[in-house]
């Protein structure tokens, strides 16, 4: 008797401690609150279960006042939040969603300025990305920061404009849209992989991430769209002229942007620094920038006949 009394007494003390700590930790994890509420709900549920069958007979009983369904809803919501946490954690391991959000933090002023910069980069003086305590500032506040909004929109617009161009020449069929899209995507992936490989081989210590390279490679779609639209509106000479202008513009843009990221401090400021390593880095920058006009011509010449 005494043994069971002390056992129940200690269990009651444990329950009291649990309820007290649940009061203190009310801003703690939601899971903890749910189980304590479910725990107290289960005690009332067990007590009301005997009264349940009699109470359920009443027709006016709404679903929400039934303690058993309360318990079920609380348990279900805690399970759902658990599941969501697990999915978020696992998805974040493969696709860094939090890092991707930085690249889409843009606004209209930034997009306008960046598009102008892509077509006319000759007047811009300061090409450095501004930092804020070791992390780069969001693209909304700095026109030099890379973003993924313009490349994504440019890619989709390129596919649509290619469909339009093929339609005006009576060569259109819906599968061709998919063919154009996958072709351009494959070239993009190959270009990013080639740049990554060459960066690895030249052992450049840079803070360029893969997503940054994807953004820089995606900026050429803007020039391609301008060229194709000009060719559609005004004919072949206009296509060649506008493509030439956009090619030179993107060449200058890439060189001025990559110069600060890939070259050493001294070489980036324009002073001539001798040495095999700097020369190799300069060649790498030039070749990355020169690949852009080549791709721009390659992906659009078959659209204008």
């Amino acid at each position, binding site marked *: 008797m005494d043994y069971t009394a002390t056992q129940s007494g200690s269990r009651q003390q444990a329950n009291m401690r649990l309820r007290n700590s649940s009061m203190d930790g009310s801003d703690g994890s939601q899971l903890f609150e749910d189980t304590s509420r479910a725990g107290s709900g289960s005690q009332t549920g067990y007590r009301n279960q005997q009264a349940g069958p009699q109470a359920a007979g009443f027709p006016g009983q709404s679903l929400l006042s039934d303690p058993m369904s309360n318990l079920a809803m609380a348990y279900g919501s805690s399970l759902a939040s658990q599941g969501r946490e697990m999915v978020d954690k696992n998805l974040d391991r493969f696709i860094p969603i939090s890092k991707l959000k930085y690249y889409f933090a843009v606004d209209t002023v930034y997009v306008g300025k960046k598009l102008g910069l892509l077509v006319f980069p000759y007047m811009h003086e300061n090409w450095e990305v501004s930092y804020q305590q070791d992390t780069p500032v969001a693209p909304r506040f700095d026109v030099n920061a890379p973003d993924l909004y313009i490349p994504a929109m440019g890619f989709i617009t390129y596919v649509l404009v290619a469909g339009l161009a093929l339609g005006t020449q009576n060569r259109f069929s819906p599968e061709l849209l998919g*063919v154009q899209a*996958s*072709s351009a*995507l*494959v*070239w993009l*992936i*190959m270009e990013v992989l080639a740049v990554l490989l060459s960066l*690895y*081989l*030249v*052992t450049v210590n840079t803070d360029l991430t893969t997503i940054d390279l994807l953004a820089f490679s995606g900026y050429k779609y803007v020039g391609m769209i301008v060229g194709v639209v000009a060719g559609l509106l005004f004919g072949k000479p206009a296509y060649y002229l506008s493509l030439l202008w956009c090619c030179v513009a993107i060449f200058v843009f890439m060189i001025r942007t990559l110069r600060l990221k890939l070259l050493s401090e001294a070489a980036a400021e324009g002073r001539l620094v001798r040495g095999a*390593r700097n020369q*190799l880095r300069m060649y790498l920058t030039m070749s990355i920038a020169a690949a852009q006009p080549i791709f721009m011509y390659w992906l659009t010449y078959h659209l204008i006949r």
Partner: protein
Amino acid sequence: MAFTLYTLIQTAILCTNAIAVLHEERFLSKIGWGVDQGVGGFGDDPGVKAQVLNLIRSVRTVMRVFNSVEKSFP
């Protein structure tokens, strides 16, 4: 040129296979690209050749691991 994602996967597999079938004794050592001729200096500038040799060696090691794992399946 109509490239599809499938051709990209094909390209990757063929390139990996090409690196995997390079014979160590008969070929790589003859042209001075063997595993013992790669890592020389420990300075801060490995150079392009050392990086290429490292890359080839690591790709072949990873392929060997896959090969041994696949061999253990009946």
